[in-house]
């Protein structure tokens, strides 16, 4: 049933930063994601294997790992798409501390999201009407273009600047900030721009586009960051940042 009879040879990272790859054999199936392979190994071969997932449909961004060297969401990556000669190498995401095996500590990722002031700060309250905003306005479209981020940190893992300059806020936080800078309801845009104009700010990006290439939601953090750079450039000329 579903099994094509073959076997996968899977190397999985075990341990913390000083861990190593351990080889397992797992059955190959017709319908099988990388997350399924990891689950199979945990259930049948290595009960101590640590990894993270929640929604299993690409909405929560918990299951990202490095698969054959590339960062990916594993719950929506079919094995057939990534296996090379029935071989898989599965490691934790780059650029984040490892908790254990395939699970990373995402705290710093969210701290940067916070430090970039990646949150809405509006004027209206729950007692006011909802603002009328036509869907075709350029500002609204700019928001829509970047809003569907699932904070999976795939982009963060794909970016070499994050690796080289660990303070750099990174593509996901900056992408979120750009959606807020286009949000006509928001009232803290000057403060937020200052938050992304500092030492760790948007201008650290060198448009490597690893973020955009690997983002599973097909978002374009590169474009968002370019928008922020432009805004920071103008603000700096005016002496505001």
């Amino acid at each position, binding site marked *: 049933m579903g099994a094509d009879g073959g076997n996968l040879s899977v190397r999985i990272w075990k341990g913390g930063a000083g861990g190593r790859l351990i080889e397992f054999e797992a059955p190959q199936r017709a319908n099988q994601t990388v997350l399924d392979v990891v689950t199979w190994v945990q259930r049948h071969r290595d009960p101590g294997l640590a990894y993270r997932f929640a929604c299993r449909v690409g909405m929560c961004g918990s299951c990202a790992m490095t698969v054959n*060297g590339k960062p990916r969401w594993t719950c929506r990556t079919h094995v057939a798409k990534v296996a090379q000669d029935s071989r898989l190498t599965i490691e934790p995401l780059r650029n984040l501390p490892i908790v254990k095996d395939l699970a990373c500590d995402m705290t710093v990722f969210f701290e940067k999201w916070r430090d970039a002031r990646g949150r809405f700060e509006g004027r209206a309250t729950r007692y006011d009407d909802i603002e009328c905003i036509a869907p075709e306005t350029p500002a609204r479209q700019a928001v829509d273009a970047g809003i569907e981020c699932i904070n999976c940190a795939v982009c963060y893992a794909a970016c070499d600047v994050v690796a080289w300059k660990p303070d750099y806020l990174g593509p996901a936080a900056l992408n979120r900030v750009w959606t807020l800078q286009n949000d006509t309801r928001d009232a803290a845009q000057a403060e937020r721009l200052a938050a992304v104009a500092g030492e760790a700010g948007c201008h650290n990006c060198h448009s490597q586009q690893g973020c955009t290439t690997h983002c599973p939601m097909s978002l374009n953090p590169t474009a968002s960051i*370019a928008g922020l750079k432009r805004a920071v450039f103008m603000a700096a000329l005016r002496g505001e940042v």
Partner: protein
Amino acid sequence: MIRPHRHQPLWWAFALHRLSGLALAVFLPLHFLVLGSALNGEAVFDGVLAWSDFGLVKLAEMGLVFLLALHLLGGLRLLALEFLPWRDGQATLAAVAGSASAVIAFAFLFNAI
């Protein structure tokens, strides 16, 4: 060393831009020294320039021209990316910049020999 997450054209564009920038930055002081040698009289300057008749030096010069062109065109792509509205196809643009640089470099070599 070149890890799989970098296997995409725009990472290479970044790497080449960085390497060309570095090479230019290293070359530029030398270039200024050569020009500065004119202070010591035309003859000295000529003596230094004579080096450029060697084939190998010609090739190196062509390399420099290539790098300068590449860095210039790549830099223009980046400036456009940052300061103009977004456009897709950055990889294509980067490839165009690379090819154009090669054309310029060969034009230089052709004219030089």
